[in-house]
Every structure is written in C-alpha cells, then in structure tokens.
C-alpha cells in the first residue's frame, strides 16, 4: 500500500512534468492518468493508462505505471507477479537506454522534483514519476526507478539479502542518479542494512547521506534553532507533511519494537522501523480519508524546501537506530535527545519507541514497557502483533518466561489473522514477523523445559533463519534437553539415581547396577535415518539429529570466519565484492548476535560482551565530548561500528564454544569418542574460551580418551586441575558460573558411563543450573578416580574417589565411582554399605520374588 501511495504522489508529479515537457496526446493522457491516480481513482487511472499503453506499446514506463496503478487498485496479492513485471520493465528500459541515451537531463529535473515531494512514501512515487517521464524521454534513470521498486518489494517480503544486493548496485552508481531517487535509495538502503544488522553498511550510507544531502538541510538550518525558524516560514506545508510522517512513524515504530522484541534486541527493532515506516506510512495514508489533500500539500511542500527538516529528523533517527544496533547506549541517548528537540507537530511515537528500545537495552524494563505503551498504535493489527512481541521480549528479559510466551503467542495469533486477511497487501508481508515471533516462542519454551514444542518453533523459524548458527545450536539444545528429560527413544537416559536390580535366586542372588548409558544411541540411530525430507517437515528430535544441527552451526560459523578473513584482507579493495560478502556475513552474524543477546539477557547480567560494550562506550563517549561537531559524531559512529564488529565476533565465539562443547557431548553419547575428542580439542584450541568451557573441554576429552582405552592421556587432561598431587583448583570461579547460569544452555550435560565399563562419568548437569565450582572440582576427582581405576592404580583411585565422595556425598557419580573402586579392591562389603547409604538408589522391579522357604 505504501508503494502505491507514494507512487500516486509520484504519478501526479510526473504527470505534471510530462505535461510540461511535451504536448502530445500521450502527455495529455499521462496527465489525466496521474490526476486520477492522485485522487485515488485507480481503476479510472488504469483505464487511461491502458489507452496510453495502446498507443505506446511496450513502453516500459507505461507498463510500469500500469503495474503501479494495478497494484494500488487491488493491493499486492501477488508480489511474485509484481516482481516479474518490474524485472521486465527494468530490462526493457535498460535496453532502450542503451539504444538512445541522450535526452536524459531534462527528465532528471522533473523526476527530482517529483521524488522530493513524495519522500515519505518514496519508492513507488519514484516509479510512477519515472514512468511518466519515460513516456516522453527514455533514459537510464528509468531502470533505477524500476530497480528501486524491485528492492522495495523485496524489502517488504523481508528478502533483505536480495534487496541489499540490488540496492548495493544502485548505490555504487549513485552519482549519476537523480538526487531525489538517490535519496530514496539511500534511505531504503539504510533500512535494509539496519534490518539485516549491517552496521558498517548503515554507517557508510549515513555518512554519505550527510555529505551529499547535508547541503540541503544545511540550508534549512544546522541547528535546532534554525529549524525552528524554518518552521514558521513553511507553516502550512510542514504540518501536513509532519502529520503524514507521524502517521507513518508510529506504525513503523510499532513494527520496529516488534522486530526488536523478536530478536530480543531492541536495537534490531529500530532498524526495521524506518523501512516499515515508509511503507506503512503510505498504507495508513491510504486508509485515512482526506489524505489526498495532505499528499498535495506534501508535494508542494516538497517542491519547496520542506524536506530538509524532515530529512534531518529522519536521519537523526536513523543515527539513533544505528547506535542502538551497535549498542552504544549513551551515544544513542544523546542523539535521541537531539532528535526529540527537532520540532514537529505530530506525535513522536517513533522517538518514543526508540527510547523504549534504549531503556530496554539498558535493562530498565519497566520504563521500556511504559514507553512502548505510549508509542503504540493499537488499531493496526500488524503493529499490535509487534507490540505484543515486544512486550514478550521485555518479559523475557524480566525472566517471566511464561508471561513472555503468552505475549508471543498472542503476537503470533494476530499475525496469523493478518495473514489470512484477503486481499493480501504487500505491507502484510512486511508486517508479518511470524518467523521471528516463532523463534522467540521457541526460546521461551526451551527455557521452560519443553524441548519438543520448542524444537517445533525453532524448525519453523528455521525456514527463514536457516543461516543463523544460533538457531541450529538451539535445536541441538532441544535435542539434548529432550534426552535429559527422557523424551527420546533411547534405551536409557542419563539419570541422577542409581538403579539397582536384583537378579537370580537364593545364593545366586546378585545386585546388578544398571549400566546407565552404554546403550544410548543404538536403538534410535538406525531407525532415524532421515530420508530426503521436505523443507518444512518436522524432524524428530534425536541425538544424531542434534549432531547434524551442531555441524550446521559450526559450518556457518566457519564460513563467517572465512568471509571476515577475506574481508579483512582486502578491505580497501573494491567495495562491491567485499561489501556483498561482508553484508551476508553481517547479516547472519547479526542474527546470531540477537540470539546471543537473548542469552545474555536471560542471564541477567550482560556479561562480557556488555562489559566490553560499556568500556567501548565510555571511550566513545569520551571522544564525543571532545568535539561536538559532525566529525565527532561520525567518529562515534565509526567507533561504535567497530566495537559492534567485535561484539559480533565475541558472540559468534560464544556460540562456537557452546556448539563445540555440545558436539563433544553428543559424540560421546553416540559412542564416537574419536570425534568427541577432536571436538573437545578444538574447543580447547579456541582463543578466549571461557573457563567453563575449558573445563568441559577437558572433561569431555578425558572421557573420550577413556573410551579409546587411553587412560593415561585422559589423566593428563584431568590433572590440569590438580596442583600438588592431591588437591585441586576450582576449575572455574563462582563468577564464571554466574555469568553462565542464566544462559540456560542445555549443553552441559553429563555423559554418563556405565558402572561396569566405568569410563569417565563426566559432569552431572543438574536441571538448568550449572555446577557450582565446588561440584565441578568434585567431578574432576570422580573422573580422576575412574581413570586411575582403569589404569589399575587402585590406591590413587581410592584417594580420589574418597575425596569426591566427601565433596559430593549425594552425587550419583561420586557414589558409583567409590563403589566401583571398592569393587576393584575386592571390598564388596564396603561397596554395599556405600550403596545403601546412598539415598538415590532405586530398586527396580525384577522378576525375582523373595522365596522364604528354602
């Protein structure tokens, strides 16, 4: 809808232009069409355009305008068709342009004026104007309008990567393009870049905007005061403009929060906002009666210098969004203040939304909720869905996961209603954030311990986010959680209790301790071969499936690494290639970032990444204070962008650690110690690995080595934590643990081992809470006892087993290892006593009944 509105405006202007340029029948027709279009009589306008088409067959501009008019008439129920036509138009006009390329200049003037007028709903306007002009002149400019419109459609379809690559091409050749169109290209590019979390790109475009268009708003006034002065002058046009803008902005803001919520990062949401604002604004205009007049007003205003103030506000808000994205909270706050000082008549919902996002990022969730509520517009269902989603995100941060899930499912419901609305509009597509919401839902359920439904959500979201490593990690975590909860079709489950069977009769009566984990993965794996599944088939959770997911996550991560390496090498070389690759990379990394933010958020303490952020922010702010000019702002942006890159890297690293640790665990579960060993080794080779994961890496490696019958090497890994031969360091500190406890990563899980085989029982992962350091130390002892037991050094084994037991008197593994050592020593009485003392022991029903009369 937005497109149409804007296009209408453009048409009008274009028509005007066309009529001015030429006197032919076609131009009259064009004029008529544009007038009709302006007054929203689309079908009449379409009739005229068809006449025109009759006269000028295959004229791309006319075709284009026909398309736009149609589009406005019935809504865009088939974006595919629109894209097709647009591509055709683009191709044709390119051909034509090649054939005759000289009359361009006159056109461009017309076009520019039209464009400037239609700003708010920019893209379609441009198209229409282009088409009108094309009736008269043929020039290369046409193609750029059509291309821009393609990008607009793609943007609506949330095909950001595609849109980005198209816009990127335009942006590279922006110089010859008419200024207004260029402005639209820049704005759209900004939106797309922010939507795909490409901070570097966005910063680049922002700087370009200020450089190239700064003049025009420089005229209006660099400072707020200047703006004020301008306002009175342009009183009448400005209000109209501002009102339209406002309408659009609230919508957009709502969208934005939704997005952000979806991603849990408020920053993200902002990115989306702008773009949606453009389109949504258009839509809202259409809906509101009396808007036509405003459009007119807009045009006139645009023709004059109105746009400057508006543009200034817009750019300012983009800046805030960018800073939000890069998590430079303080700078964002300052810029937001500036933006709020820019006078305007309408409501300031976008600004409010951004503020809410800021508060969200700062952790003052209550304020965020209040602001969000002030900024919302509940009448539109798309917005409502986003609003609910945003609330869900906030409650997620508050660790009210069930409430969050409630809001998410509300949001999902609203979007599903939205989707079933007919006819579908293009804005429906852009407003439908179901994948994100579903992802958020999945996260809540994962945290609440419902792996199956969570996995369903994640897999659904995976249709869109298939290239985000975090998604794959989450699915794998679902599998592991399901394993822990005993939902998988395995013969046994790692459990916290000791299972004892009594078999045999009379003097052959024996106590048999269940060999807990040795069977894992047998029954299910063969059955579980995945045939070629349809894209959205839900796969059953299983451990081999978890392995595949983890491999995918690692694959994506390593492809990031390769790309960033490449980017780093030839950063200076030609923009195009680098940028495209870096763009992709950024995109994916952003997603992961979001997710990781989720984690951090849930942790409650923003941890390392946040800490670094704050530091960097401090420095950035310090810089900013030195000089308040544009230069300093640019410096702030630049530095926060580079900080942001670091954040992305850190977050990817965190994902990688988790994925590798999970992978090692999964391979152990599948009895594939060689692979487990290599995963654990690569975990240990990571730079800046957290101590906790280092601990896990050591434990997993040691267990794998035990499985491979190499207890000596295993002992080496374990003895890292032993210093004077007896006592052990805490493998990690309480702080390390606290950092991660909130994370609820299910990956720390015990890989159990049977009593009989007794390789290493690794860690007992209790619930969602991580082991305390003391317990971890106990586990080191348990493992040492086991490995010495395997080597036959019973004395050592006994020492460690005793230590472990004294540290963890009720831990199943500690008891089992002590019992095992006792048995090795032939001390079955002691073993039995220990077993009896263990309150966790569970006697299972067996076929034996006690026979008393012998």
């Amino acid at each position: 809808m937005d497109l149409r509105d804007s296009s209408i405006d453009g048409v009008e202007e274009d028509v005007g232009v066309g009529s001015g340029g030429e006197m032919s029948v076609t131009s009259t027709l064009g004029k008529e069409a544009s007038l009709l279009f302006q007054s929203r009589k689309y079908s009449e306008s379409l009739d005229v355009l068809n006449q025109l088409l009759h006269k000028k067959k295959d004229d791309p501009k006319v075709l284009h305008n026909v398309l736009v008019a149609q589009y406005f008439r019935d809504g865009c129920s088939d974006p595919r068709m629109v894209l097709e036509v647009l591509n055709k138009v683009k191709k044709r006009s390119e051909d034509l342009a090649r054939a005759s390329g000289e009359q361009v200049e006159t056109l461009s003037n017309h076009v520019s004026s039209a464009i400037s007028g239609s700003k708010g709903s920019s893209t379609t306007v441009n198209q229409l104007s282009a088409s009108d002009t094309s009736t008269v002149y043929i020039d290369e400019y046409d193609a750029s309008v059509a291309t821009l419109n393609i990008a607009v459609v793609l943007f609506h379809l949330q095909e950001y990567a595609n849109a980005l690559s198209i816009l990127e091409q335009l942006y590279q050749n922006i110089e010859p393009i008419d200024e207004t169109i260029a402005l639209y290209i820049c704005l759209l590019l900004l939106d797309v870049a922010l939507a795909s979390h490409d901070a570097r790109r966005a910063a680049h475009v922002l700087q370009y905007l200020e450089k190239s268009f700064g003049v025009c708003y420089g005229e209006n006034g660099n400072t707020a005061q200047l703006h004020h002065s301008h306002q009175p002058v342009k009183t009448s046009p400005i209000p109209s403009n501002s009102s339209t803008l406002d309408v659009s902005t609230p919508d957009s803001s709502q969208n934005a929060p939704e997005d952000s919520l979806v991603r849990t990062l408020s920053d993200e949401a902002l990115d989306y906002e702008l773009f949606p604002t453009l389109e949504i604004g258009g839509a809202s205009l259409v809906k509101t009666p009396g808007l036509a007049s405003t459009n007119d007003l807009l045009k006139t205003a645009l023709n004059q210098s109105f746009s400057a103030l508006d543009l200034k506000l817009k750019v300012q808000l983009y800046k805030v969004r960018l800073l939000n994205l890069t998590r430079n909270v303080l700078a964002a706050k300052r810029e937001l203040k500036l933006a709020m000082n820019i006078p305007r008549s309408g409501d300031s919902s976008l600004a409010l939304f951004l503020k809410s996002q800021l508060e969200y990022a700062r952790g003052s969730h209550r304020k965020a909720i209040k602001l969000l509520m002030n900024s919302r517009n509940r009448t539109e269902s798309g917005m409502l869905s986003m609003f609910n989603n945003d609330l869900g995100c906030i409650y997620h941060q508050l660790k009210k996961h069930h409430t969050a899930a409630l809001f998410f499912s509300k949001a999902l419901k609203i979007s599903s209603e939205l989707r079933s609305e007919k006819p579908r509009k293009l804005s429906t597509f852009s407003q439908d954030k179901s994948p994100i919401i579903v992802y958020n839902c999945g996260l809540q359920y994962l945290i609440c311990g419902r792996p199956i439904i969570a996995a369903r959500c994640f897999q659904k979201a995976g249709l869109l986010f298939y290239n985000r490593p975090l998604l794959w990690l989450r699915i794998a975590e679902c599998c592991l959680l399901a394993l822990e909860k005993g939902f998988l079709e395995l013969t046994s489950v790692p459990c916290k209790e000791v299972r004892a069977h009594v078999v045999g009769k009379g003097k052959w009566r024996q106590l048999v301790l269940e060999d807990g984990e040795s069977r894992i993965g047998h029954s299910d794996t063969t059955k579980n071969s995945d045939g070629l599944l349809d894209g959205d088939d839900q796969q059953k959770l299983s451990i081999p499936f978890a392995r595949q997911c983890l491999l995918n996550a690692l694959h994506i991560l390593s492809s990031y690494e390769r790309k960033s390496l490449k980017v780093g090498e030839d950063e200076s070389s030609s923009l195009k290639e680098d940028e495209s690759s870096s763009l992709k990379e950024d995109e994916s990394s952003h997603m992961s970032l979001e997710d990781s933010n989720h984690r951090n958020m849930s942790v409650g303490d923003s941890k390392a990444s946040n800490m670094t952020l704050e530091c960097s922010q401090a420095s950035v702010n310090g810089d900013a204070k030195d000089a308040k000019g544009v230069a300093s702002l640019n410096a702030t942006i630049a530095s926060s962008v580079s900080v942001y890159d670091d954040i992305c890297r850190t977050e990817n690293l965190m994902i990688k650690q988790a994925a590798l640790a999970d992978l090692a665990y999964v391979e152990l579960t599948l009895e594939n110690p060689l692979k487990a060993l290599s995963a654990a080794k690569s975990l240990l080779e990571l730079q800046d690995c957290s101590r906790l994961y280092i601990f896990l890496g050591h434990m997993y490696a040691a267990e794998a080595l035990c499985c491979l019958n190499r207890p000596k090497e295993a002992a080496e890994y374990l003895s890292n934590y032993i210093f004077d031969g007896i006592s052990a360091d805490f493998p990690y500190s309480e702080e390390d643990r606290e950092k991660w406890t909130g994370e609820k990563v299910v990956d720390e899980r015990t890989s159990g081992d049977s009593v009989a085989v007794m390789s290493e029982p690794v860690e007992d992962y209790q619930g969602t809470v991580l082991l305390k350091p003391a317990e971890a130390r106990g586990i080191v002892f348990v493992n040492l006892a086991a490995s010495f037991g395997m080597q036959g050094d019973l004395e050592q084994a006994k020492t460690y087993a005793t230590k472990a037991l004294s540290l963890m008197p009720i831990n199943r593994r500690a008891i089992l290892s002590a019992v095992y050592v006792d048995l090795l020593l032939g001390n079955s009485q002691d073993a039995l006593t220990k077993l009896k003392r263990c309150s966790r022991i569970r006697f299972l029903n067996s076929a034996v009944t006690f026979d008393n009369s012998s």
Partner: protein
Amino acid sequence: MIPFFSVVGKHIRYLIHDLNDSNYDSLIHDFFQIADYGSKGSILLLQTFLDHLYFHGGDVQNKELKLDCLCTIFRYLLNRPNFSTVLCESLRDRNTTQEFIGALSKDLCLDVLEKIAVFIALSDSEDPGMKTAGKRLCIVQIEELCSSPSHFDSNEHIQKIIMYLSQTEGVAKLLDSFMQLLSLSQLKQKTPFMLAPLLSDDMHDTNSLRNLDLFYECSENDFDTILAELEKDMSMADTMKELGYNCTVDASHCREMLSLFLPLTEVTLARLLSTIARTHTGLDDVQNTYSTFCDAIGSDLSVDPTWLSSWNVDVLLDSIKHLAPDTNWVHVMENMDHEGFYIPSREAFSVFMSFYASACGELFPLHSICGSVWKNTEGQLSFLRYAVSAPAEIFTFAHTSRKLVYDDNIHDQKLAHGPENQAWFCLDLLDILCQLAEMGHASSVRLMLEYPLKHCPEVLLVGIAHITTAFNLLQYEVVSTILPMVIRDGSRSGVILQLWHANRNLLLRGFMDIHSSDPENLNRILSLCLDSKIFPPVLDTTPFSFSIKLAALASGKEQWNLEKWLSDNLSTYKDTFFEECLKFLKDTPSGVSQDVPASPFQNSGAVRNVSSEISSIFFKVILPFQCSPVLQSQAGQNISRQLFEEMKRLHVASMHVDPRLQNGGAPDSSTSDGYPDDIEAEANSYFHQMFSGQLTIETMVDSLGHFKESTENRCHLV
C-alpha cells in the same frame, strides 16, 4: 573388563573360523548382537574380522562366505553414528595402506556413496597415513560421483560430503562441482531443511524468493498448527506465578486473567491449584509486574494499590466457578501428578486442602494420591508427608476403600492407634509408601514412619504386612523394628496371629532375624507360636536350620514329638535335612552355652540335659537311617557317605563331651570350661553369614570340616 573383552575377542575369532553355510544366519545374528554392544563390541568385531581375513596371513577357509558376512556387518556398522571411531580403531596399528583400503572397499562391493562414507570416516583417524590415504581416495570417489551422479538417499551423506570438502584444503573446485551436482538434483524439490545453510549460498540466486515460498505460500496452515499447540501448552499456573498475588486482587481482575487461558480444563486447574499451594507465600515483589501487565494487555481496570502478600483463594475460586462451573474436582485431583507439584510446608498443605474443600464438598479422592505411584514421586511424597500428619478435620484417610481391619481386643489401646485421621489404617497409603521407599525415597518414607513407629507400632506392623512389593524393603525394616518389641511384650500376642494371617513369610522372616540377632529369643518365639497355635505350620515353613532348633526347643519343653517330626522330615527331604541336623548337632553345644552367660542362675544344667537328651533323640532317629544303606538306596535315599561318616564322628564326639558336661555340674563351670566368647562369636558369625546367604552352605560345611580336622583347639571349639 579387559579380560572380558579378550574373552569376547576369542569367541568372535572362533565364530568366524567356524563360519559356514549352515550356520551363517545364526552367526550373523550373533555378530549383530555383539555389534550392538556399544562401540567396544563393534570395534572388536570388525577388528577380529579384518585380522582374520587380511592380516593373519595364510589361507582362509570359506573366504567368499566370510567376505559376504563381513560385508553385511560392515554395512550395518556403516549406518551407525559411531562408524568413524569403529573403523579407525579397528584399523589402528594395522599398517594400513591406501592400497589396502582400496582393495577392502572393493572386496566389500561398496557403492560410491558408501565408499565415500568410509573414506571420510578415515579422515578422523589420528594416524596421518590413514588420513591422507582416506583423503586421496575420497577425492577420487567424489570426482567420480560428480561425473556420474547417483541418487542420495540421505541428507546426512550430503551434509557429510559438503562438510568434508569445505574443511579440506585445495578442493574448492570439487566442492563447486559437487554443489552444482546437488543443485541439479535438488532443484525439483525444495531444499531440505537440514541442508539449507549448506546450500543456500549457491542456491540463493536461483531461488530468490525463498522466504515467500517457504513462508507464506507453503506453510500457512503450519503456523496455525503450531499456534494451536502453543496455546495448548501455555501454562496459566506459571504465568500467574510470574505475575504475582495481585492477579487475584479482585474478582474482575482474576476473571480477566483466567479468561486468557480458556478453557479451564481439569489439567489446567490442577496445575493452578498446585502452584497456588506451593507459592502461597514468599513470592517476590511483583506488584509492578502485574500492573504493567494489566496495561500491556489493555486492561482498563485500575490496579489496586494494595498489595497482596498471598493468593486470595476466595476470589480465585469464585472466578473459577464463574468461568468453569462444571469442573469436576475429583478429576482435578486426579491430575495432580504433574511436573512441579510440590507441597513445601504444612501451611501450603492446608491452603491446598482448604481450597479443595471449598471448591468441592466431597471427600477427598484418596485414590488420586495413593492409588498409584506418580511420575512425580517427590511431589507425591511431599503431599503424603503432610497428609499423614494432618489433623482429621483437614485431611482424613477414614474413608479409604482398603482399610486395615485391625481387631484389637484391648480397647483401651484405642488411643494408641495413631492420629485421628486414621492414616495408618489405609492400606493404599502403606502400599504407596512401600513402593516409594523402593524407588529411592526410603529416607523420606522412614521419616514419615517415625510417628506410627512410636505411637501405633502394631497397627503399622499389621498393616504393612498386607503389602507385598518386589523387594519388601520397607516391610522388613518395619518388622525388624517392631517385632522384637512385640515379642518382648507378651501381652500383644494377638498381633502375631494377625500377622500370621496377613503375611506369614514376613512373620517368619522376622522370627529368624530376631533369633539370629539373639538366639535367646527362641524361647519367646516358641511360646508365641504355641499361644497362637501356629506352631506346626511355622515348623513346616521355616528353613531347617531354624525349624530344627525350634523343634528341639519345643521338644525340650515337651510340646512336640521331635522323634516323629525328625523321621518324617528325614524321609521326605533326605540329604538336605540330614545335613541340617548334622549342623545342628555340631552347633548345639554352643547354642546351649549361650544361655549360660545370659542367665547363669537359671537351670543351665537342665538345659544341657535337655540338649543332650535331644541330641540323643537325634542320633536315635538319624543313625538308623545310616545303618541300612541298602534300604536307603532302595528307598531312593542317598545320604552321602561323607555326611554319614561325619555324623558318626559327631556322635562319638558328643558321647565324649556329654560325660564331661555332666561331670562338671557346677553352675559356673560352663563359663570356665565352656567356650570363650570370642570363639562363640566367631561361630555365630559363621552361622549368621550362612544364614544371610553370604556364605554358601557348601563353604560352611567345608569350613566346618576344616575346623574339625584342624589340630588347634580353638578351631575344634568353633
């Protein structure tokens, strides 16, 4: 475990050697079983096979057949997730070359994809030679694959190959052509979910509207199904817990809150109720959460500034009744077994029960909590813990359907029947407790039993005797605690009879335990049995070692015809019984002397006399059996020669001892002449060990024999 595996290895080698046409199928089955025993079994199997066929040298019989078998097993292993470990470990230290691996894959008739899988697996090896061999072969195979594409039947293979190629250096070209191959074969269908991230880079352009395709056109309904599932899965109870007490601040709020989760099913309500009980105090300050929540859901109700410190149960109940008037509260109770149910305190319990009481006037459905063991055993225990000790007006077991009929003649003991709520008369409760105890909650159950053990032990004893479980863990504990008390206190013999009717095995076991802990108790046991008139069946059902003693004692008191009993049993049970008699006779002196230190002024002489009398009865009965071997064998009796000899010796010895005993008739002589305590204790310990099954009877006999032959006096005494 290592010896165990070497045994298995030998077994496998034998099986392989033995493989032929006729046993092929059964052996394959065996091999699969071995392979199913974890990675160790698989490694051993494959290793042994390869050794046999390739590394052993010399001729191999039935080579074709064996290769065929190996091929089957190999394929079986190939589809396992741990194949790479299995393969690499079985080839470890085997000096494998590229040629060998190539030949092997040829011998096994693997197809291209299988070969690739094998070679990729080799790349996990820690042996660099094997690794490069695998790599070279693998690349050749993939090239071949690219030139003549075949069908992929598993995404996992594709994933593996792509991963492998992208991790290997210098094969970028191959990766590209493989991707191309994939895109050709995959284009017809949608990209499989699993492969999406791997393929997306290359397929992106061709499939530019992926989002649109996948999201908006193909799977619309799918979203709705997920949504439905989500809504079903939403937890009202947890949400309310998160939002805090103010949800119930007044009826309209509460109703609005609840109506977010319609319909209110019994399951939902069960969860809600348990949450309310569990969190009736102590929730954090969440007032703000709730008020913001009200704003967020657009509730125009102004939130009361008052701030509840607990749930307003009445408001909640009213709202529930309003929204779900037809709720069946019995069903609600039946749904209490869910994750998260836990009663943390007495107050929580009374909140729970008062809620139930005001929601539903009926008696509490006991079957819901003691009808069966819950999945959430902790929750069940937590409920029972407070239920058993609750006053009758809050909770009572009086209406249980399985009530213990405890007929106690002595009415003034009524007060001792435990709490008014009659918990310990509820057999279902005891049943559940016994089961829970065996499921790892013994310590909590013991805590619960403390009260009845103290206040109404007999009720508990009789009640618990009605329960049979797999291990009877709790039952034995209770019996061993209470029965001695009963036996000491002769006034409660009625209990014995009830026990006897309820569960005679349990009673007898209790008797034996008591006896073994203190043999003097035998007298009391005897008199109880006689009182209750259950003496003959007791004799018939206890183990001989016990029954012989009991019979001897009874005979000593002239309550029993030992001679007849002995000969009856001897003719029925023969050797076994004979052995026991032998043991008894050997043991008797010590058994007698035990009485002495305990009661030095009792007529220990009489006891001895009795015992010697009894011994003589024994010999009288037994020896004739020995004397007519021909008759024995005809009668099918086969008392072994050895036993027989022993008995004879014993007889002689006892003749020897008896005079000594009789001669030294002074009361204190037994202490001086008798057996020192330590020896006695040792003897007892042997007996005890045997009794509890820790020593087998054979060993016992052996060691007894050993003692006898020993020259040391001490051993003789023992």
